[in-house]
């Protein structure tokens, strides 16, 4: 995903000279092409994310289109107040890009995990939260966010994730994308869990359960039209995210659901538990610890379906 981001931002910067890329001292070599082409519109802001975010806001106040880029917890949690006051209160076209969302950088330890960022950012007035499902969606999300002209958080995974979309889909911020049709349960995946959600649907198919899979890339604003349809048509709606079950996609849909008349579907939220991971291990191991494997997702979905 991060290579797709670097390629897309380089392409966009060639089209729109208002674009400025701010990095929090990461992306070694990742932005070499960008820097060669647009040396005056790249700033390594150092290990100082609060300042980087304020600088981006100051640039946006003067008509530029800055993007801040660093590891997800540092791009969001570390400088949450600058995002709230400088970016959102002023309703500025600043795009905040967090790389290593969720458990992408699991091996680096919980300081580098980002399982609360969606919760924090989606409560900020004016903020749009987009979690692309694969590298194809990353490029489309960035392009759409730039056209939006308001605060956007784009949550990336790392590099080398499986690509789900064989062809670029129709991509609109706030509109979920159907990946697989299905009739029994609906899996709503956000961000880098998309390939896992597809695998879970295959496990379910093996158990005779037809699962619709959606890339629910935009957590804010929610695709309410899609949710109305899903909660009317299916017995079980499952949210899948590499984020805490508190406050992420599952939390957002639970809040939405609470204000709806009684609906057919029950909601099952699958995400990371409300605890830090203290053990070493890569992303695959961390997902195993948090029951975020295709097997566990399929099993819990089946259990929910059978108990309806």
């Amino acid at each position, binding site marked *: 995903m991060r290579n797709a981001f670097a390629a897309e931002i380089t392409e966009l910067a060639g089209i729109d000279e208002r674009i*400025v890329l701010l990095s929090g001292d990461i992306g070694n070599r990742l932005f070499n092409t960008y820097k060669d082409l647009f040396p*005056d*519109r790249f*700033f390594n*802001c*150092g290990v*100082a994310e*609060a*300042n*980087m*975010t*304020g*600088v*981006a*806001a*100051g*640039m*946006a*106040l*003067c*008509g*530029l289109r*800055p993007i801040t880029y660093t590891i997800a917890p540092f791009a969001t949690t570390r400088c949450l*107040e*600058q995002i709230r*006051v*400088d970016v959102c*209160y*002023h*309703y500025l076209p600043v795009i905040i890009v967090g790389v290593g969302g969720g458990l992408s950088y699991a091996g680096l330890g919980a300081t580098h995990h980002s399982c609360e960022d969606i919760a924090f950012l989606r409560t900020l007035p004016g903020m749009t939260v987009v979690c692309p499902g694969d590298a194809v969606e990353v490029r489309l999300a960035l392009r759409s966010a730039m056209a939006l002209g308001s605060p956007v958080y784009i949550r990336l995974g790392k590099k080398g994730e499986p690509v789900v979309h064989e062809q670029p889909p129709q991509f609109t911020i706030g509109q979920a994308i159907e990946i697989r049709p299905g009739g029994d349960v609906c899996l709503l995946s956000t961000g880098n869990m998309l390939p896992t959600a597809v695998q879970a649907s295959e496990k379910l198919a093996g158990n005779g359960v037809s699962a619709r899979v959606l890339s629910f890339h935009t957590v804010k604003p929610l695709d309410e039209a899609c949710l109305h349809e899903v909660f009317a048509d299916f017995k079980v709606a499952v949210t899948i995210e590499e984020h805490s079950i508190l406050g992420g996609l599952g939390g957002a849909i639970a809040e939405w659901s609470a204000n709806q008349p009684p609906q057919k579907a029950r909601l099952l939220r699958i995400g990371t538990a409300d605890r830090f991971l203290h053990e070493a291990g890569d992303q695959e191991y961390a997902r195993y610890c948090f029951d975020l494997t295709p097997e566990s997702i399929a099993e819990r979905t089946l259990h929910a379906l059978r108990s309806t």
Partner: protein
Amino acid sequence: MNATPCIPELETTARHIRCKLVEMSHKARTPHLGSSLSCVDILVAAYWRALSINPKNPSDPDRDRFILSKGHAATALYATLAYRSLFPIQQLDTYAEPGSLLAEHPSPGCAPGVEAATGSLGHGLSLGLGMALAGRIQGRSYRVFVLMSDGECNEGSVWEAAMMVPAQNLGNLVTIIDFNKWQATDRSDAVMALSPLRQKWEAFGWSSYEVDGHDMAALVECLTNVPDGTGKPIAIVAHTVKGKGVSFMEDDNNWHYRIPTTEEVVAAGKELGFAR
């Protein structure tokens, strides 16, 4: 007032504004009067002599920018902008009333000339850095002035920005510290080891100055010497007195929160030369 007012004229304007601030605090029953009074001379010197702005075109992209990073001195900014003809002085009467755009801390776009919403401390210098870099990218030669408080220098983000600005060689960025030696609840030097403040900025790579923040001529000289030829950003440590201009408020930190009574408003007016 003519286009380039002389020092005595500026001093008179500052007294007018101080008087207005006392009345606004009293009428609206809002705090931070001491903090507002301490930076009036800085604002007057900046807005009447240093800043290149056109009150008739406050959003001119080439204008100099001024950010009141110490947003709790909002009344001082509002009054300055009004007296500088950016909006009608009568509008100050709506200050802090329900529905008024002039709140206790400036909100985005609340009045012509307000460049940024502030109130949470430690944000303004980063915003100013972004504006200065934007000017460079866009080929504009405007200057950026950021006014901070000494208590504000407690914030780590100030020093993040203080390190990045000199790395970008921005000679058109000025930070002014309203060093009135107090923060909300104690002497600023007792809370954090702030001194030696000018030397700190110098050590961070700034061209740094100390000035009497109530000496109008000295302020004008300092604020109009931008860029100063060193190629470095400029830090001005302005030594000020909290509550300046009203004898019973000066250097008394109760006036961080206290609201003047009717009698005190009259007494303050007399001291400032405006008998009611």
